[in-house]
């Protein structure tokens, strides 16, 4: 059934299926739809100097049992990459973690080489790495540039020493600035700064200063996340024991502040928590949000290939054992039916400033009781034939409402 009559939102078809990223505005629907066809790869490096109190990623800290045999892990990664059954040329590569910058350049080079060998990396591909400022020296930056990395994302989090300490981060604000200078002098043309707001102890004032300093450093890309209390972390234990939890209203204020500051500095918000200059969106992220296909390697990763999401073993020792036995280190997979994958596309797409193509879900959703209430309250709207969340801080509320739409409605 066509959704158009109810929603008034025409289901625009996008013909752009190119890999050219151009100078489109980061929030461009054309760009977003193009991202669906980009192929990317994610490589997870689970090692960290120590575990930050708020972190629930699959990481191994240097001081935790299991040790840091990074060499063995890289061997396993290379082996896993070689097992990829159906490679095709990559438009984006992302090394995340954990802390990828804890690997030596030679190991990072092996990873990129094996991806290139197995998949082929497009000449104009984005090759991005997540970095902790304290690891990032000018020499290291130059080495990475030579390996092919052209984008670096710094986990700076804050420029307030007290907040950094509360977050368990070991770098200083000065080190953060030096890291960015090093990236610049090594000719990284796409630098991202990660910030975290709402840390207990942070004030409006110190947040404002952090944002100002981040923007003065003139990054091409900015990610700004609310501190989230994830179950099982040291932070959540502290909160359960009575420590102050982040306050959602305060976090809303901080979000509004960073959004405004970024905007006036010429950065365009293209996802709930991400801003970029034209031509500098994170291709890897945008394509995954658009349900593009990607491969993923390393502990605890998930990929998305041919309508199937498979996940890897999370525990390092088990992962290594499996790969060394010559098997793919899978721990499970999920195959989505047409309705589920359409709904997923719609729900995730809501996070994008470009909005989401209504497809078969958007019409019934906007016409539903819950959808109409959201329209009336100015939370969602239609723009250029797409459903757009006008209050990005309420995106999950909208997504939950989408769950009320059943296949029978479509």
């Amino acid at each position, binding site marked *: 059934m066509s959704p158009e009559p109810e929603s008034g939102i025409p289901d625009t078809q996008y013909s752009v299926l190119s890999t050219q990223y151009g100078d489109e505005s980061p929030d461009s629907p054309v760009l977003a739809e193009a991202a669906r066809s980009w192929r990317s790869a994610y490589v997870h490096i689970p090692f960290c100097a120590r575990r930050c109190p708020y972190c629930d990623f699959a990481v191994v800290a240097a001081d935790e049992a299991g040790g840091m045999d990074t060499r063995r892990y890289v061997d396993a990664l290379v082996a896993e990459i070689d097992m990829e059954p159906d490679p095709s040329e990559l438009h984006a590569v992302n090394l995340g973690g954990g802390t990828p910058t804890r690997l030596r350049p030679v190991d990072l080079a092996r990873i990129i080489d094996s991806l290139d060998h197995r998949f082929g990396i497009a000449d104009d591909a984005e090759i991005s790495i997540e970095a902790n400022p304290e690891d990032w020296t000018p020499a290291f930056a130059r080495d990475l540039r030579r390996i092919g990395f052209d984008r670096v994302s710094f986990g700076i989090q804050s420029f307030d020493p007290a907040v950094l300490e509360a977050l368990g981060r070991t770098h200083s604000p000065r080190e953060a600035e030096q890291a960015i200078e090093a990236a610049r002098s090594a000719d990284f043309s796409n630098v991202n700064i990660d910030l975290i707001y709402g840390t207990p102890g942070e004030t409006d004032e110190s947040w404002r200063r952090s944002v100002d300093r981040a923007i003065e450093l003139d990054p091409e890309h900015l990610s700004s996340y609310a501190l989230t209390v994830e179950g099982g972390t040291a932070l959540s234990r502290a909160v359960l024991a009575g420590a102050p939890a982040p306050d959602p209203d305060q976090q809303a204020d901080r979000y509004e502040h960073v959004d405004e500051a970024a905007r006036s500095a010429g950065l365009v918000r293209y996802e709930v928590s991400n801003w970029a200059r034209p031509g500098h969106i994170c291709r*890897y992220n945008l394509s995954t*949000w658009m349900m593009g296909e990607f491969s993923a390697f390393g502990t605890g990763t998930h990929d998305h290939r041919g309508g199937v999401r498979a996940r890897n073993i999370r525990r390092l020792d088990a992962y290594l054992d499996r790969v060394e036995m010559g098997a793919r280190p899978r721990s499970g997979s999920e195959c989505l039916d047409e309705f589920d994958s359409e709904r997923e596309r719609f729900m995730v797409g809501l996070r994008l400033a470009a909005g989401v193509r209504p497809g078969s879900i958007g019409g019934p959703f906007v016409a539903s009781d819950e959808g109409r209430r959201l329209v009336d309250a100015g939370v969602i709207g239609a723009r250029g034939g797409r459903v757009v969340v006008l209050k990005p801080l309420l995106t*999950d509320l909208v997504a939950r409402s989408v769950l009320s739409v059943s296949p029978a409605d479509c």
Partner: protein
Amino acid sequence: MTAPSRIRNFSIIAHIDHGKSTLADRLLERTGAISERDMREQVLDDMDLERERGITIKANAVRIDYTAVSGDTYQLNLIDTPGHVDFSYEVSRSLEACEGAVLVVDASQGVEAQTLANAYMAIEEGLEIIPVVNKIDLPAADPDRAAEELAGVLGGTPDEVIRVSAKTGAGIDELLEAIIDRLPPPEGDEDAPLRALVFDSFYDTYRGVVSHVRIVDGSIATRDAIRFMATNLDVDADELGIRRPSTEVVERLGTGEVGYLITGVKQIDLIRVGDTVTHTRRETGEALPGYQEPKPMVFSGLFPTDGDDFERLREALDKLRLNDSSLVFQAETSRALGFGFRVGFLGLLHMEIVRERLEREYDLELVATAPSVAYRANLTTGEQVPVRSPQDLPDAAGLASIEEPYVKVMIITPSEFIGTVMELVQQRRGEMGEMTYLSPERAELHYRMPLAEIVFDFFDQLKTGTRGYASLDYEPDDYRVSDLVRVNILLNGLPVDAFSTIVHRDKAYTYGKAMVGRLRELIPRQLFDVPIQAAIGTRIISRETIKARRKDVTAKCYGGDITRKRKLLERQKEGKRRMKMVGQVEVPQEAFVAALKLET
């Protein structure tokens, strides 16, 4: 069929928790009615809700065979009854089917309010009573004092009181002999036309209505053509049987016997508890007196969370009424909640149980509105109208006065707490009546009080104030004019009938403030600011605002996370299911429940 002289029919009655069901366990066990393997505690409490709460809710009739010391075998039909005041209608119906009652008193507690209330009921029915002191095994037991109190109540001597422990089994043999020796056999006329009393019933999806009957005169056999006299329903007796407690089909039920009757009738309204069954071809001239319908004490609106379930709710109420004949209801419409029913209950526990049974046994999701007693409005025209819901209250302009129901209250308390009880009762607008001493240590206090003052949280406060020692019973009295007002609760500017209440003017402010405060805590933040106000007429007496929700988003979402994120959203969505839209505001079930439990 057993000769009436070899039958004894009795109910076990007592104050709540004094051990009726446990005593029934021992009787079943001692007579071999139930094997050791199948035995569990309070085996007759077979409803899930009874087991979860550890109380009896439904009276339960069961037949046992007992071979007396004399060598003769007797048929005993025992009915285990509930002790809670809300279920006293179950007791009165059970007594109607019996010649005797075993009145149980906990040796560590002594006579309590429902001991007296139930004893008086049995005396009024002309039943022979065997007084029993239970729990003599308890270290805190004082069997002598309990026996003395019991003898005082019944006008007998303490040595007539049988002392047992339903836990250890001590005294059970003596009790069984006393049941044979002291209780009279049924008196009915075996040759007279059939008269059978329907004292309980329930609905079985496959078999239709199942009636529990006590044969008063004559006898009934399978395939007999019978008539339900009140509704003039002519049917065949498809199946007769007894419960032991597992069901056993029998060919015939004779005079004095108790059993069940299935006719295949599925139209619920054709079979009524209290009706008389007779033979079509040999009809009795005189139906049994049946039962007086109990008067509901509190009313509350029950609304399906999903408006489409209204008809299912009606059907469920109809079916439940078969098993709970104290239930009364009529359709009602609420501006906030849509179509539902105004249901009358015998008390708050009854209300809770009915609601839970509807939800569990009929798979419904319900919202219940704040309970209210039944007021009466006197109009300036001289007319009087019933007010069962705050919405029924006419506008102030046409209203001359409001009357509220009063009840006669009986409180039994250790003497040391008399002062506390008096104070509490005074705060609740109670009027002192007589006071008598059951023993030097324990007093029986009588009051008249507005029903609205005791039905909600009075009992809890009484228990707290007397360290759990006082007990309470009450029965309807008359109506009196009082200074009452309706407090309306406005959500986002709209009055929500489900939350409005009629209260005494002196308590209106406290009520309004407490209600507004509770709702502010319980209603989650919405897409916009939601003011909550309490008002009397147009005058706002309290106000709070629920600030709009500003942030509801996971900060970070990356490709690998999408499955996990979707599952998280699904779980959160699931948690939101029990929300009811009231105007533009999503209100969780708990908010309606909290309104019921508001302490003022």
